[in-house]
């Protein structure tokens, strides 16, 4: 239990720093940046307190916003993802989630890919919708969301698999 709290605190700080120091300066093809801080929201323990989870996700988003001067864009997207996460968990892992014994360390890779890509696309659509804030530019919005989602999904999967606890 104690171990899980420490690892989540470390993950929060490290992901925030990686996001603002490295990932925001990639600017692949001019505008594509991955938002890897969503890993914190993806990997937060399932059985834990949901209120705490919402508050932590909001604070993480707000800190990213503070570094990027983007108003409340990332806070809004993070809180939506944190609230909607059970839907994605159920969709991707099915019975394992119903039995409340889901550990991200040993799930099969197909389900994990489904889960990560679903969550990331949902998160990025909200980020770019709030950032552009203009429905007439829907094509630009979808283009940006799609390309940076692909980038984020690949990077998130690599990072999750790299730092997986081996049993």
């Amino acid at each position, binding site marked *: 239990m104690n171990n899980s709290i420490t690892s989540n605190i470390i993950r929060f700080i490290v992901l925030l*720093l990686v996001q*603002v*120091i490295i990932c*925001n300066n990639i*600017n692949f093809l*001019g*505008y594509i*940046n991955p938002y890897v801080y969503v890993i914190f929201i993806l990997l937060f323990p399932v059985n834990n307190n*949901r*209120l705490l989870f*919402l*508050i932590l996700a*909001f604070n993480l*988003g*707000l800190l990213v*916003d*503070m*570094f*990027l*001067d*983007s*108003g*409340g*864009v990332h*806070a*809004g997207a993070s*809180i*939506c993802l944190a*609230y909607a996460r059970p839907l994605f968990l159920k969709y991707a892992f099915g019975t394992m989630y119903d039995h409340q014994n889901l550990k991200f360390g040993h799930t099969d890779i197909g389900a994990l890919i489904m889960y990560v890509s679903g969550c990331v696309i949902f998160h990025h659509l909200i980020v770019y919708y*709030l*950032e*552009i*804030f203009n429905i007439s530019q829907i094509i630009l919005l979808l283009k940006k969301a799609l390309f940076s989602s692909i980038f984020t999904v690949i990077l998130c999967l690599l990072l999750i698999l790299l730092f997986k606890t081996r049993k």
Partner: protein
Amino acid sequence: MQQIFNFVIRNKTLLLFLLLFGIALSLTIQSHSYHKSQFINSANSLTGGVYGTVNSIGQYFDLKEQNLILVEENVILREQLLNSSGRNQSIAIDSSFNDQRFEIISAEVYKNSYNSPNNYLTINRGKRDSIQQDFGVITSKGIIGIIDNTSNKFSTILSILSKKSRINAKLKSSNQNGSLTWNTTSPYFAQLEDVSKFSKVKIGDTIVTGGQSAIFPKGIGIGKIESFTTDSTGDTYTIEVRLFNNMTTLQHVYIIINNNSEELKTLENLNDE
């Protein structure tokens, strides 16, 4: 009463979600409205400290490029100095008008962004260096933006690469005025709108600041005309401007302090009333 409490306890997750999402949404809407400083901004000691540490490492990687920029600027200044020295001697200097109208403070860019609809830069000067909102920021080549938020040690700049920014500019050759905006597509181009159809616009002409506001002095470079189209109404030109500055690699900038700005502002306020 009991039922209300029960309702709150039963739906506490949903209510917390709605509350936090409401806060995030209001911050977002605030950041999209013109001329309102952001509540959540990167001019504070936490973000400034982190960006400062990163910058102190990162600045070594482009020392060569920055040196070249400095030498280029020195060449221009030297030329101006040599060419003006003969002329100045004949003018009698009246000591009662000797106070400077503009002062310049140098600053270092800690954070730069150019890929969102509203871009901000963070620099390492703040209130204690007497930086205030609405000061203009330039480099040796051209304009960068306007100071937005300030804290004690840091400030944020609203870049010209922003949907919110509108800067008075003119064609250098014919003094026709227009306003500089950005259509969010490329960090190398900005748009000059509302240029009268009667002006002679030529590809390659220089665009400079117009000097109609207290923020920028007259005649600071902005860019060159790349192409131009007639507006949908047919009365004005919209000019595509290739910026002199490479907005993606900024390191050293200058902040312009206009000592007359207070006086100008009070005068303008008097006129409005």
